[in-house]
């Protein structure tokens, strides 16, 4: 397995791609999101699995995103996602509201190669009312009068996330954050940034195997040290609340966001750090 570079990885994401991202508590690749901003990606369709956070707000603010399907966009303790909120208000972003288990279910349907899966709940919500692609059928296993929602399989073009490490075979280890495994299984391609590449094969080690995603599902690996920052990475590093709070403050305005981007994404120092 030969790692690629972060900028080459960003270049391999075509405009308009359906890109699945884990949320801020589950190993997003902020490094790759910044590289996508630098490459000037356009028209991306984001899928928050099951919610979206810092990376999504950044990409939306930078004009990379045409649509987002997600159960929420939030900066957590730092509050509402400012560029997402502004884009919704301006009507420049198509938002396809979802609910968390529905995202997981649609990806699990793709993971299993079935065209749909059912999910309880949802009936009576406006989320369902605004999803013409979700169907309500009468549960064939009840004696009539039991409506249940079917959700279609959803296969992202590209899964993007950050893992702790890759091995010589191209397997990646990310421990308990197994929604990333589901995203990788369900997606056509998976682009994974890692802190480091190590020798050996995680699948030969009974302690590492359960938290490993098989190289079968991993299209490319790029090394990006502290690639999840400001988000936490398991026991490797913690959440940088001050960095996110500073972003939330500056990104309240278009101008503040532009200044932040210049400093944290476009400046030679910022780009070189990735």
């Amino acid at each position: 397995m030969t790692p690629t570079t972060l900028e080459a990885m960003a270049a391999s994401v075509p405009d308009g791609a359906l890109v699945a991202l884990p949320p801020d508590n589950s190993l997003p690749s902020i490094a790759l999101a910044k590289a996508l901003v630098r490459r000037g990606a356009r028209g991306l369709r984001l899928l928050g699995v099951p919610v979206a956070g810092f990376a999504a707000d950044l990409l939306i603010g930078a004009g990379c995103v045409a649509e987002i399907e997600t159960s929420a966009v939030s900066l957590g303790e730092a509050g509402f996602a400012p560029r997402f909120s502004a884009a919704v208000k301006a009507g420049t972003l198509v938002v396809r509201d979802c609910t968390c288990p529905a995202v997981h279910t649609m990806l699990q349907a793709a993971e299993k190669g079935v065209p749909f899966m059912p999910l309880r709940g949802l009936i009576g919500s406006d989320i369902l009312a605004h999803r013409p692609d979700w169907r309500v059928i009468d549960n064939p296993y009840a004696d009539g009068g039991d409506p249940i929602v079917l959700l279609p399989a959803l296969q992202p073009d590209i899964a993007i996330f950050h893992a702790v490490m890759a091995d010589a075979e191209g397997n990646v280890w990310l421990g308990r954050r197994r929604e990333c495994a589901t995203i990788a299984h369900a997606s056509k391609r998976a682009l994974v940034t890692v802190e480091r590449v190590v020798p050996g094969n995680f699948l030969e080690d009974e302690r590492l195997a359960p938290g490993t995603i098989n190289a079968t599902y991993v299209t490319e690996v790029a090394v990006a040290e502290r690639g999840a920052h400001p988000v936490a990475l398991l026991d490797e590093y913690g959440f940088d609340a001050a960095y996110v709070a500073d972003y939330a403050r500056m990104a309240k305005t278009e101008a503040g966001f532009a200044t932040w981007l210049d400093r944290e994404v476009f400046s030679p120092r910022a780009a070189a750090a990735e």
Partner: protein
Amino acid sequence: MSDIRPEERLAAALARLIIDPAAPPARHIAVGAASPLPAAACWLVRKQGHPVRLSLLHRRSGNPFTEGTRELFDLTGQGRIDLFFLGGGQIDGQANLNLVGTGEWPGREVRFPGSFGSAFMYVMAHRTILFREEHSPRVFVEKVDNISAPGVNAPGVFRRGHAQALVTGKCVFRFHPERARFSLLSLHPGETVESIRAATGFDFDVPAEVPRTPDPTPEELALLRGPVCDEMLETYPEFCARVFNRKAAA
């Protein structure tokens, strides 16, 4: 014992609802992100010696799940989550929740973060305690602009549980799913039935006598300020600093 803080009263009120013997047993409670008061109430129940399992979704270490967040929803689907907490940018008199936004769909006036798992959890958990500190006609409306999660369902629609109660900064309401209405359960200090009516956009039932929301007992206060705060310092440092005047070790 120093002055009782409003948050301490709310935590104690929530804890009493959790262990309410009239409600289904709370063996396993899940608490979502950014919910310090529900988390404090759960820890209070635990520290009082009730053998309840807590799944705190956004604890940085010791996260209880090994399938990612999917596991919370699977657990709830299995019927293993007895109690969940939800809030809402708007909550109406039928206990409908709006976490999406006001104005035209999907929240063109004020966009909230989104519905998270509410459209599922509210239906599939055995019960839900609604919690919203801000008690105003802006939040408690007659009819929500958009329904993230419905308070009740049409007959025949599979539903495992409903709202048990709504705890606010001014009072506690009980919810009656059979008639899809709230009734006033208790008033926090300084509030009257009239002040609640003035601050609430939806109609609700008022029993002949409405008790005051009790003060936390000295034992409850001691637990909250001591062992409960210890458990919460890592996840909610700002809350602990503000309410309990405690700072996490660097």
